[in-house]
Every structure is written in C-alpha cells, then in structure tokens.
C-alpha cells in the first residue's frame, strides 16, 4: 500500500517514455513522444492548447492506454502494472478532486481514507498540508467559498496526501489571476526543493522557466525541442527588441539601421510598421544601441522596448508558426484540443 515515501526499487529515471502514440479517431494526439525525467528533477512540458500535453499526462497517470510505445513511472509499466503506478503518483491540475460541499479538512481526510492511512496519520497529514498550503484558517469552511487560488492549493494538497514519488501537474496555473499564479509557483517551488519528481505541463514559457530544470516543447503530438530554459532561449535568440515605425514608409530604412544588432534578420510586420530584433542575452545594451541608430537617422518610433522571448517567439523560432495557429486546419486543431482534454 502507499505509505510515506514510496521506496523506488529501480535505478532508472523516474519517468521514462518511449515512442508513445495515441489517437482519438482520426486525431493523432501523440505521435511518438519520448521523455525522460530523472528522479528529483522537474520537467516542464510546454506547448500550446491541443499539443498533446494533457494526453501525455493521462497516459502517464494510467487514465489512457497508449496505442503504441512504452511509459514507465519509477520502472513500473503504465499498461502492465497500472495499479503499481497509481500507488506512487499524484495528479493535480486541470481536473479537480475537490468536492465543494465538503470542507478543506474533510476533503483531505477522505483522501487519506482512500489511501488507507490510519485515523491518526490522516488527521495529522491533513493538518500538516493545510498549514503548509496556507489554508489553516479556511480549513473548516466548505470549499465552495474558496477563491480560485485556494482551490488550486487545496487540490495540490489533495494530490500529496499519499506522499507520491512522482507528481504530475497538468496546467496548474491556467485560469488563475497573476497573484494567485505567483502564490502557486511559490508552493510548487517549495515542493520541488523537498525532492519530489515533478512533471508539469504549461502553456507559459515563463512558468516552465520559473519551475522546471528541463523543458520539453511539444507541438502536434511531437517533441520539437528539449533542453534547459536557457537552451531554448538561446535558440530563440534571447531578448527581443521591438518597436513601431511612425512613418510606415521608412520601415525598410529602420530595418537597415538595426540589422547589424542581430545575427538573424529582424522580423518585420510591414503593415503595422513593427520591427522585432532578436538580440541574444544583451537586451539593454541592444536597446540603447537601437535608440542611438534610429535617432541618428531621425526615425521616429513608438512602443520601443525590450522584452523576454514569449512562447510565441519560441514557437516561431522552432516551428516557423506561432503558438496559436497550427499548420493543421483550425477545425482539426480544435477537435484535437477537445480530445486531448476530455477523451
């Protein structure tokens, strides 16, 4: 039975996925995914809606059987020993285990019962988790009245009742306001520092950057890039300096002026007069240089600034298309998204 700190009896990686395919009818949600998460590491699975993130999590948590390929969690095969996998994993995120009529404490204690903890242990565990996730004051109120952030924290707490060896968080902050998101990051970081292996899916590069040791980018059910956040940003080209040219007909001249600032050609939206330059790690000095060069030619700009590369930039750099649009027809992308979440 699952008790505190399931002892891994194997020396391989905590999560190992090899060539996993999964289709829903005609929609191929996963088209040969490989993943490795070392014990105690945090892997961020990054991708737009419908990329296959949720499907991957469902395969790893035994909710969906893969059509082909293998997935092992602490060496346990998700198809051949699903019960053994369920004993050592925790899952939270898009789904919720919270029953809103019950109080936070009741939710936690019932979870403890389902993991067959004895009365004393489940009481203590519920108390600890409530404290740790800053829910002590609300512990005995029905969760119906909890804020979005509190509900996510409680839900995360519910997935930790059994002290899982490997935790899966499927878009843990999607739909949260910025402040609650920061709070959630805080909680997840703390969790990770205590050594839990974590696989986290997200649509936000920033989130993967904040929390993950390693990031795997997936799109249309395939891994398109893997590495640290820094690796990915280097591939994108680091910071982006961006501005709009006030006199649109001088856009070409402006591009000419700043071309030398980057190894790659600036991307230009001629209609909007927008110029974006990937400037690597030297955002602020490139910004100053940009201002100087444009000023020397008396080119007027608005909205001049430096920004961090977004998921949009990562996708543009890796796939040639943005995160929102795909190369599949929109209707198919939508269908894939729905299957990914619900099927």
């Amino acid at each position: 039975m699952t008790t505190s700190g399931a002892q891994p009896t194997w020396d391989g990686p905590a999560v190992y996925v090899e060539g996993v395919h999964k289709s829903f009818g005609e929609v191929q949600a996963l088209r040969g995914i490989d993943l490795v998460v070392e014990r105690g590491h945090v892997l961020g699975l990054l991708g737009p809606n419908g990329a296959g993130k949720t499907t991957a999590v469902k395969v790893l948590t035994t909710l969906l059987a893969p059509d082909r390929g293998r997935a092992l969690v602490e060496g346990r095969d998700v198809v051949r020993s699903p019960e053994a996998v369920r004993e050592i994993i925790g899952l939270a995120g898009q789904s919720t285990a919270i029953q809103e009529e019950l109080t936070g404490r009741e939710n936690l204690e019932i979870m403890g019962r389902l993991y067959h903890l004895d009365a004393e242990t489940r009481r203590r565990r519920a108390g600890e988790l409530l404290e740790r996730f800053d829910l002590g004051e609300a512990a005995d109120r029905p969760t119906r009245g909890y804020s979005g952030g509190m509900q996510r924290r409680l839900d995360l707490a519910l997935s930790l009742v059994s002290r899982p060896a490997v935790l899966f968080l499927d878009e843990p902050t999607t739909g949260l306001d910025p402040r609650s998101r920061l709070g959630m990051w805080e909680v997840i970081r703390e969790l990770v520092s205590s050594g839990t292996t974590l696989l986290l899916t997200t649509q936000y590069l920033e989130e993967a950057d904040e929390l993950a040791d390693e990031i795997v980018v997936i799109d249309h059910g395939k891994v398109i890039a893997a590495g640290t956040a820094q690796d990915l940003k280097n591939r994108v080209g680091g910071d982006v300096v961006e501005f709009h040219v006030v006199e649109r007909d001088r856009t070409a001249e402006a591009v000419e002026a700043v071309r030398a600032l980057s190894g790659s050609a600036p991307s230009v939206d001629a209609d909007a007069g927008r110029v974006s330059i990937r400037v690597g790690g030297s955002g602020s000095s490139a910004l100053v240089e940009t201002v100087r060069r444009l000023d020397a030619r008396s080119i007027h700009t608005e909205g001049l600034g430096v920004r961090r590369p977004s998921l949009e930039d990562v996708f543009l750099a890796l796939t040639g298309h943005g995160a929102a649009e795909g190369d599949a027809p929109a209707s198919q992308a939508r269908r894939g998204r729905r299957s990914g979440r619900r099927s």
Partner: protein
Amino acid sequence: MRDALTEPLVAVEVGRPPAYQQVRSAVADIATLTRRELLIWLRNPAFIFFTIIQPVMFVLLFRYVFGGAIPVKVRGGYVNFLMPGIIAQSAAFASFGTAIALARQLQRGVIDRFRAMPMARSAVLLGRLSADTMRLVVTVLVILAVGYAVGFRFQNGFVAGVLMVLLAIVFGVVICTISGFVGLAIKDEESVGSFGLVWLFPLTFVSAAFVPIQSMPGWLQAFAKNQPVTTVIDEMRALALGGPLGLHAWQSALWLAGIAAVFVPLAVRAYRRAT
C-alpha cells in the same frame, strides 16, 4: 550494472496483492465513498429538496388536490391507491441525483482523479450506488410516514408491507442504473439537469401510479399497461392492499432483471471510457 543508454529499460515487475486483500481494500474504498456521498448529500439543500421535500409535496398534492376527482375502487379510497404509486414514482425520481452527481464529477475531473489512485475500479460506481440506495431508503420511509399521517394504511399485513418497501427500493436502484448511464454518457451536469431525465416523466406518469389505467384513451392504455413502472406498481399495490401476487411478481422480476442486464454493462462501459 546495465547501461541504460544502450540496453532497453526493463520494467519492474510488481506483484499484485492476494485476492482477499484486494476485496478487503475494495470494500473499505466503497465504504469511504459511500460516506463521502452521503456527507455531500446532507450538505446540499437542493439534494435534500429533491429527495425529501418534493416527494412529500407530491403526496399532499395528489392526496388533497387531485385525489377527490379520481375515482378508484380500492378499500380505504384514493390515498391507499396513491401511496404505492407515489412511492414508486419518487424512487424513480431519486435517481436524478445519481445522474447529476456522476455527470458533475466526471465533468470536473473528480472521477479521473479517483481513477489515477490505487482504488478498485468498481469502487466509484459501487460507492455511488450504495449511497444512493441509502438515500432511497430515507425517501421511501419519509413518504410512507407522510402517507400514514394523511390516512394511508397497509391492508395486507406487516410482512407484505415490508416486501412492498423492498420492491420499491430494488426498483429505484434499477432505475438508478439507467440514470447513471445517462449521466456518464452525457457528461454534462447542466444537460443532464435540463433534459437528461425527461424519459422519467412519461414512464412514471403514463402508468398506474396516479390514476387507474382504464381512464386513459385506448392507445395510451396499451403502453401504460405493459410498461415496467405499471407492472411494479401493480405488484406493490397487491402487496400493500391485497390481491393476486403471482403474475405481476414474475413480470416485475423479469423487467427489473432485464433493465439491469442492459444498463449495468452500459454504465460500466461508459464509466470505463469516460475520462
């Protein structure tokens, strides 16, 4: 030590616990989920309304508003005719809660979460069914008590009365399997609430529940006479008020077994597939 990079990883073999332990842990899980569902029910005013207040209202409405206009040839008058019918109808409508709760838990992902836990696969549905059975018992007993207060009396002795209550509960549980399937198949709380259970209305109202079938037009009688709700109510009346038991007993048993044989597998399949 093997080299993970050149040799394929070999999965760890994990033995399953012995059968008796699996059964024991499944029973514990079912008990936990039953408690959970009952607690939810107690906290939810809407559920209490549907399972207690609404049936009681029906008893009072039919007893005092429609009752006077409906002539029946039954010892003790309309209230004695009405009670078996209204108990069956309420038992059927209690399955509303089953459908709504399953659709809601599926929609919110609660069921996914349970399925990612080391729990017997059957525990979620069986826990639900056992909690709903307890709810049914409460509903039936409350209605019976109200019935007694407004003049209903069993005419056929204590044992037959108890058998009538048992039949009503079995009937309600069987209807729960249909509703459970509907809830799992539709997967959307709102849709289930608004149209998922419309089939219950013709089934319970076009039956012998509230009026003698002879008062309906001929084409409707054909349906009303032969459908399962009427069969069960006829048997319940025979038990409560006296009369031949045999034929309706067989028909009821066949109907209930048939419905369960169709909808239990359908519900289980819908549950397995839904995530």
